[in-house]
């Protein structure tokens, strides 16, 4: 092949919103906000740690000077690897240019897979979501799409994680009500990894928690952040900012607030355990000023998430973004339109972990059918994001000259070698009219429902491979959690 000097290659679609100057201005806004105003931190131990490490503490208020922020950013790990619970496979790399799409946490309702009607989220749904996500090729990590309503109050999170991890080898992003429950989940991760040492070498989950907009870290959220940092558990610390309500109505202003409130967690984590993995970002959307709904289908969600991703790239932080979600209540055209827009924006921006694929009704109802549809959209988007490969082989000039005018390429070895790179639909209809008619005139909704139910009925997940010993240990953890909750009430 010809050697080329200073030849620039675009391996993927290039997508930029902000110029270097714009990014620098936004970052200076973050630095000034943290230095001049800071955030309220409702946790004494955390305030102590921050105070002893260069932050200015005044009551609950913590102000973070620029040098402390820059030190924290400098100690972030360039990459972190997460493993399947059996330790056999590297499942996720937290690093620039890697994008993993998954569902989201904790809606109270679930779209019932049998009746297609909304109802409270049940324990069995966590297993369903884990199994279906395990089967979907474009879903890169897993969240539950709900908050279990039919177990002991206050233990929904622990049951959810114990059930889910046995039903998928993909990385689970779990959540917890409290540090005690997070410690239970940590034990579950350790059991599944085969011991404490194995877990610390090959972590098998990422923990998710949320500060509150504007600029507030509550006791549980920052407590969990501290726990993860101490134990070097990869974590997400991201708010859900409501444009025009909890943050400014302008996108640049929203990004400044969002980044500032998460930066409290970034600084804390790097002080406590330099090099521990922390991801920020969150849901960035607007309050619909007519309906007072936090919109999950707004185009603003797409553009703000993409801009935020660029900002985090600029400072070396991984981005937890949002896509594949909708404000509509039922599977219909709107859910597909909104999902496609946000997925493609997240893909082209290069966000790292992209959640809420499967959220409907503005985050109130989890819907595994939506996730299945999103899986198909992610596949299409990934192909576009992959760009056009340009080299001697793909230029195919030799083949073009060989076939010449008027010929065809269907017999060519080159075609045999490359046509499989074409994206293959699993839901999109490309039948002829006659075939479509003969097959029962199925709509997209029919195909989504059929595919989902087929996975639920027939997919063989990893559950049977969980060692008996581990299963017993998980039950012990659940029993101990039950005892603890009983003794507290």
């Amino acid at each position, binding site marked *: 092949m010809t050697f080329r000097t200073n030849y620039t290659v675009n391996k993927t679609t290039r997508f930029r919103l902000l110029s270097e100057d714009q990014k620098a201005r936004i970052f200076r806004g973050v630095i000034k906000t943290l230095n001049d105003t800071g955030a309220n931190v*409702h946790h004494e131990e955390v305030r102590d740690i921050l105070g002893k490490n260069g932050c200015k503490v005044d009551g609950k208020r913590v102000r973070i000077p620029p040098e402390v922020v820059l030190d924290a950013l400098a100690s972030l790990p360039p990459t972190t690897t997460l493993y399947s619970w059996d330790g056999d496979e590297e499942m996720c790399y937290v690093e620039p240019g890697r994008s993993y799409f998954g569902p989201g946490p*904790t809606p*109270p309702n679930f779209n019932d897979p049998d009746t297609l009607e909304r109802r409270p989220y049940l324990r069995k749904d966590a297993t369903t979501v884990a199994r279906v996500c395990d089967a979907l090729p474009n879903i890169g990590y897993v969240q539950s799409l709900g*908050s279990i309503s039919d177990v002991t*109050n*206050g233990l*929904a999170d622990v049951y959810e994680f114990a059930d889910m991890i046995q039903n998928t080898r993909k990385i689970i992003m779990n959540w917890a*009500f409290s540090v005690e429950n997070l410690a239970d989940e940590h034990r579950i991760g350790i059991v599944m990894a085969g011991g404490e040492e194995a877990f610390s070498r090959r972590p098998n989950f990422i923990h998710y928690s949320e500060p*509150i907009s504007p600029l*507030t870290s*509550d006791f549980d959220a920052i407590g969990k952040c501290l726990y993860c940092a101490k134990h070097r558990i990869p974590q997400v610390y991201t708010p859900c900012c*409501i444009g*025009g*309500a*909890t943050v400014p109505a302008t996108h640049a202003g929203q990004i400044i607030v969002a980044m500032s409130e998460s930066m409290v967690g970034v600084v804390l984590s790097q002080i406590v355990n330099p090099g521990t993995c922390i991801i920020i970002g969150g849901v960035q959307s607007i*309050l619909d*000023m*007519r*309906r*007072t*709904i936090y919109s999950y289908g707004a185009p603003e969600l797409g553009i703000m998430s993409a801009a935020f991703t660029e900002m985090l790239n600029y400072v070396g932080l991984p981005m937890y973004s949002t896509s594949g979600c909708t404000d509509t209540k039922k599977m219909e055209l709107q859910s597909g339109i909104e999902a496609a827009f946000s997925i493609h924006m997240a893909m082209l921006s290069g966000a790292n972990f992209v959640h809420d694929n499967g959220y409907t009704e503005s*985050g*109130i109802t989890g819907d595994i059918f939506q996730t299945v549809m999103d899986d198909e959209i992610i596949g299409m988007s990934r192909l576009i994001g992959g760009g056009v490969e340009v080299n001697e082989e793909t230029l195919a000039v030799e083949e073009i000259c060989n076939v010449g005018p008027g010929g065809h390429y269907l017999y060519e070895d080159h075609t045999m070698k490359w046509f499989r790179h074409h994206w293959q639909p699993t839901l999109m209809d490309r039948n002829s009219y006659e075939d479509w008619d003969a097959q029962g005139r199925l709509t997209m909704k029919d195909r989504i429902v059929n595919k989902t139910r087929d996975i639920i009925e027939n997919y063989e997940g990893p559950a049977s491979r969980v060692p008996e010993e581990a299963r017993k240990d998980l039950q012990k953890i659940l029993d101990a959690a039950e005892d603890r909750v009983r003794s507290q009430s």
Partner: protein
Amino acid sequence: MAVDLGQMAELLIAGKVDEVEKMTGQAIEEGMDPSDILQKGLIAGMDVVGQRFKACDMFIPEVLRSAKAMGAGMKQLRPMLVASGAKMAGTMVIGTVKGDLHDIGKNLVGMMFEGAGFQVVNLGIDLESQVFVDAVKEHKPELLGMSALLTTTMPKMGEVINALKEAGIRDQVKVMVGGAPVTEEFAKEIGADIYGANAASSVDKAKAVLNA
């Protein structure tokens, strides 16, 4: 020159807080009937605001401005209306329950009730049950509003209702609950009187229950 109540209504619709406040003061000074000021000025304006909001011609920040103007006028009118025995919307006490620091939804509801002419006592966030009980005793509200955004803190709303029962004051107040994960079924289960699905509709629902 007499104060033009039609103009007052217009200013209220436009969200001119200071001007509505000033005009209400002038109207009182001129000896206008407080009920007239309320009905033909403030409420006439808020009625239009309500209609326009439902028709999607007005947005929440505009509605809240108008509500604030309504509140500013009511503050001056209230003592006179009380003295004259005129019928008023009454008092609402509102807060977010223990363990929950979420503020915005509850504030939005409070502001909307202010716009409907209620005197709103906003207790804040992360409140013990006793704070609600004490506030009901102190302010004697017609309505108690509680909010929770977290599935963990939702049950605290039931605890507050129980605390009201234990204090023997449950039947003195209508209880309304809301917050993103709260459902109508949950509201019934814990014995609340009103479920507020969102800020605007909770005002209508509360009015219907209080006027029943």
